[in-house]
């Protein structure tokens, strides 16, 4: 503990802050940079660029802005590939580095979408952690000038029957339900997966998508000296400032009286809903020059990023920030992560109109400073200058080329091929019974089970533009009620594949999301990602990360879809145990006419079922190996992105031409699980179709491989009567193998010569799993 000039003042009784003047006079005062997460070298570099030691407030700013979370200091050298290898595109209106990427979807509309992690807070306090994760990503989208129109969630938890999963999962789902429903955003899809590797590090990745007209695009750049800096939304309280508490107690000689500060923020979706409507009205009135959401690092981040992006300076008076807790000091005000706040840059002449709109929505708005031409970010508190820094130095942060090392166990994993297990399963007596039992085991597994226990807690209808939601392959929205312009969105990730081969695994996740979008009938257009990994300080984790990014960048180039933005979440590990590398990839697609979308379930009896793509005996990392044999080894399925592209052409083309009544991508569990899902989902989702519709298929001489292989690049389709020839022609044109395997109809899933399962039994196998576990 170091006594500062403030003497014995404890928390809340700060009389004299650490000022720039004081910092210049007391160069040798020790500061708690290590407790705040800055290395000695980083601390020294702050001193170097300021020409003096930082003040406590400046130290707070650099500690959060240079954190991995805000600065991407370990990942940036790799993420550059997304720009370097970007496929040629004319559809990107804003890209990486902005709050979210913005994609032109035609007719003057643009779509912005982004996925972001809230993993750590969701483990500490699942309900609020997940709720504020939704809130944060929604504000990112709002800050682009867009109306948020839907959310999705990619969730991963520890073993489904682990006691802690029973704490974390219902809390996370409840928090998403509470916040998203109250905001009035439909939840249109996502993922739910379980693996013991996530037990201490659940993944809560929230995606939001928004829509705007091209001319409404807002960028977060503070331009125009003299323009006003307005803070709007909730008052600032002591939320998420554990770090600043360290600073307060250490530097103010607080001794044993360290204030107990909550590290997880608490969300108020009602205020966020008001903030959305208020901001949209402010945009429409033309009174916003620039805007930025307040997320991690709060005011510190917003002021430094706005000023840095604008190439200007900014002067703010921290005393003007409305506080929920008047005892907060300047460092805490700067670092607070209180939710439901935005920072807008407003011309002085527009302030009156701005305030009037905020008042109409009961959204507090306060001028706290102005844009300057000084190139400095200056903050004062009680008449003293407590921050005086070049904003870009905080906004940019250090850059690390961390060491990489291929994991020692990698060769062993690859060599541990499940082929012998598959060979044993394929032959021997009782094959038909074993196939049937294995299929039901996959359907009853947490991965294969019906997710309705979760998705029924989310409003999927609000705003009235949801065309498809879970359990369809992609969430589908109508964007324009007159022209029926529409979009599709899907997210996918597969930690098992990525553990075996992060390069291929990431491409498999990309290919699956891309295929999901295509299977809904949309044309894939752009990519977002949330990269969840262990510690970047572990060279083996860093190797996984580098491989994953390389795989994604190469994959996006091959598929012709640019990465528009994303998020990196490191340190998902407990002691030495990292999670499986889990990049979650989101793909956006567009429909010229959303009425042509494809359902993923069978809609009518008597239609021909075709299997598109090529099936090889590929079981490495498969659901079958995992569920039936608890096995994870070998090589993941081989990726063929050119084939994925051809398949997507066929699916989107067939949808536009009205040739198909259903299409469903093959992924986890392979054809067996896909067939069961097609039987149960129906054309309009389970609730609309009643009891589902069966099918009879002939899977040839090796039904085991046909049912459970996870070869990518495949989809199952039901061809409309009278369109078989046209569809066969389309497949031939694009060189996509298409094999007729049977027909829809009846009330059971029948594999000729092997086994059959009544549709009701399929449903029962999937239905109970989650409900029984989580009540």
């Amino acid at each position, binding site marked *: 503990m170091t006594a500062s000039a403030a003497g014995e003042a404890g928390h809340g009784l700060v009389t004299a802050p650490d000022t720039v003047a004081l910092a210049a006079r007391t160069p040798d005062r020790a500061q708690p940079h290590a407790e705040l997460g800055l290395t000695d070298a980083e601390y020294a570099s702050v001193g170097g660029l300021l020409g003096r030691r930082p003040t406590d407030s400046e130290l707070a700013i650099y500690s959060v802005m240079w954190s991995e979370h805000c600065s991407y200091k370990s990942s940036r050298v790799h993420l550059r590939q997304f720009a370097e290898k970007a496929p040629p595109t004319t559809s990107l209106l804003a890209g990486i580095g902005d709050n979210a990427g913005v994609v032109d979807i035609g007719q003057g509309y643009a779509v912005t979408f982004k996925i972001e992690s809230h993993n750590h807070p969701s483990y500490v306090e699942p309900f609020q952690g997940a709720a504020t994760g939704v809130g944060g990503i929604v504000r990112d989208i709002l800050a682009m000038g867009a109306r948020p129109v839907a959310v999705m969630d990619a969730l991963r938890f520890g073993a489904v029957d682990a006691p802690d999963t029973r704490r974390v999962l219902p809390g996370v789902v409840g928090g998403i339900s509470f916040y998203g429903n109250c905001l009035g955003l439909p939840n249109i899809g996502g993922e739910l997966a379980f693996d013991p590797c996530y037990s201490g590090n659940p993944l809560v990745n929230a995606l939001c998508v928004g829509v705007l007209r091209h001319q409404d695009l807002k960028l977060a750049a503070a331009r125009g000296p003299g323009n006003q800096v307005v803070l709007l939304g909730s008052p600032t309280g002591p939320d998420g400032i554990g770090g600043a508490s360290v600073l307060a107690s250490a530097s103010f000689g607080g001794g044993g009286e360290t204030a107990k500060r909550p590290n997880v923020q608490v969300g108020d979706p*009602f205020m966020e809903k008001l903030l959305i409507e208020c901001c949209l009205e402010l945009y429409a009135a033309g009174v916003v020059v620039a805007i930025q959401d307040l997320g991690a690092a709060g005011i510190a981040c917003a002021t430094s990023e706005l000023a840095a992006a604008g190439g200007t300076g900014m002067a703010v008076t921290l005393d003007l920030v409305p506080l929920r807790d008047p005892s907060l000091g300047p460092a805490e005000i700067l670092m607070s992560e209180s939710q439901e706040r935005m920072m807008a840059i407003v011309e002085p002449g527009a302030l009156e109109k701005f305030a009037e709109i905020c008042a109409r929505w009961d959204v507090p708005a306060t001028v706290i400073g102005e844009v300057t031409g000084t190139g400095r970010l200056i903050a004062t508190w009680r008449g003293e200058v407590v921050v005086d820094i070049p904003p870009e130095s905080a906004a940019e942060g250090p850059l690390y080329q961390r060491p990489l090392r291929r994991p020692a166990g990698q060769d062993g994993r690859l060599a541990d091929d499940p082929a012998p297990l598959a060979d044993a399963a394929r032959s021997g007596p009782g094959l038909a019974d074993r196939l049937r039992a294995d299929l039901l085991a996959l359907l009853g597994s947490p991965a294969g089970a019906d997710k309705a226990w979760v998705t*029924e807690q989310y*409003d999927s209808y609000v705003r009235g533009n949801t*065309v498809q939601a879970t359990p369809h392959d992609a969430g589908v929205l109508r964007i324009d009620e007159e022209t029926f312009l529409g979009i599709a969105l899907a997210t996918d990730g597969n930690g098992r594949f990525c553990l075996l081969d992060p390069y291929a695994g990431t491409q498999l996740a990309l290919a699956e999301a891309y295929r999901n979008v295509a299977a809904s009938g949309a044309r894939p257009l752009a990519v977002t990602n949330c990269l969840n990994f262990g510690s970047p300080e572990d060279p083996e984790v860093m190797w996984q990360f580098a491989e994953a990014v390389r795989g994604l960048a190469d994959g996006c180039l091959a598929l012709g879809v640019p990465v528009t933005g994303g998020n990196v979440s490191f340190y998902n590990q407990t002691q030495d145990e990292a999670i499986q590398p889990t990049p979650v990839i989101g793909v956006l697609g567009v429909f010229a006419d959303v009425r042509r979308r494809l359902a993923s379930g069978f809609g009518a009896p008597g239609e021909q079922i075709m299997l598109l793509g090529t099936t090889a005996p590929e079981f490495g990392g498969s659901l079958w190996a995992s569920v039936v044999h608890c096995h994870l080894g070998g090589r993941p399925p081989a990726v063929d992105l050119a084939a994925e592209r051809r398949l997507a052409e066929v699916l989107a083309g067939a949808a536009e031409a009205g040739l198909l009544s259903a299409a469903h991508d093959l992924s986890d569990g392979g054809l067996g699980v896909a067939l069961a899902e097609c039987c149960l989902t129906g054309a309009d989702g389970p609730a*609309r179709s009643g009891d589902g519709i069966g099918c009879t298929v002939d899977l040839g001489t090796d039904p085991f491989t046909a049912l459970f292989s996870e070869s990518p690049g495949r989809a199952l389709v039901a061809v409309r009567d009278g369109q078989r020839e046209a569809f066969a022609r389309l497949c031939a044109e694009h060189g996509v193998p298409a094999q007729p395997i049977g027909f829809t109809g009846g009330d059971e899933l029948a594999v000729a010569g092997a086994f059959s399962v009544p549709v009701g039994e399929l449903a029962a196998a999937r239905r109970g799993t989650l409900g029984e576990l989580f009540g």
Partner: protein
Amino acid sequence: MTTRVGIVTFPGSLDDVDASRAVARAGATPVPLWHGDRGLRGVDAVVLPGGFSYGDYLRCGAIARFAPVMADLIPAATDGLPVLGICNGFQILCEAHLLPGALTRNAGRRFVNREVRIRIENGQTSWTAGYQPGHEITVVLKSGEGRYVADQRTLDELEASGRVLARYASGNPNGSARDIAGVTNPAGTVVGLMPHPEHAIDALTGPGTDGLGFFASILSALADA
């Protein structure tokens, strides 16, 4: 003159856009009404839409009931202005004592988002005249506090006087007393319904068009008046 149907937006209203769309689809003119304004802009009927007015703080609908617009709406409704409260709107009507009973936490204690079958029990109200009694329709239920409760005497009175508007017909999704999904005032003008007919007006975005009848009903009711 087309029929003008007011849609009230409270802070936290969410399905106001959907209610407006449904009103327009039925052939009437939706008229936005703002919670903080007095006066009803000469509308012929009013929809209180779903959402979380005032964040559902205190109790669902408890604060909205005191909004300035309600100071005009409550006496107008008492005097016969047709009012449809959907979900949060139903909660507000109960809080305003325009309808009996209350909506409480679902029996399952979780939010329920699901398509449900409901049976129209009373086809005589301003909002259900387009349905035959006993007609089953599919609409959307999406609520965390949708469990209808009232004391036994009130429930008996509602039953005896035909004021049970609709009942859940495909299982009771939230533990509502006597499967009640909606009720009406004695005049059949003020109606509360927990599920959302405005989300069932288009097969593209909902479970068919069964819900459109609520909005078509008010048009014909007003035309006949």
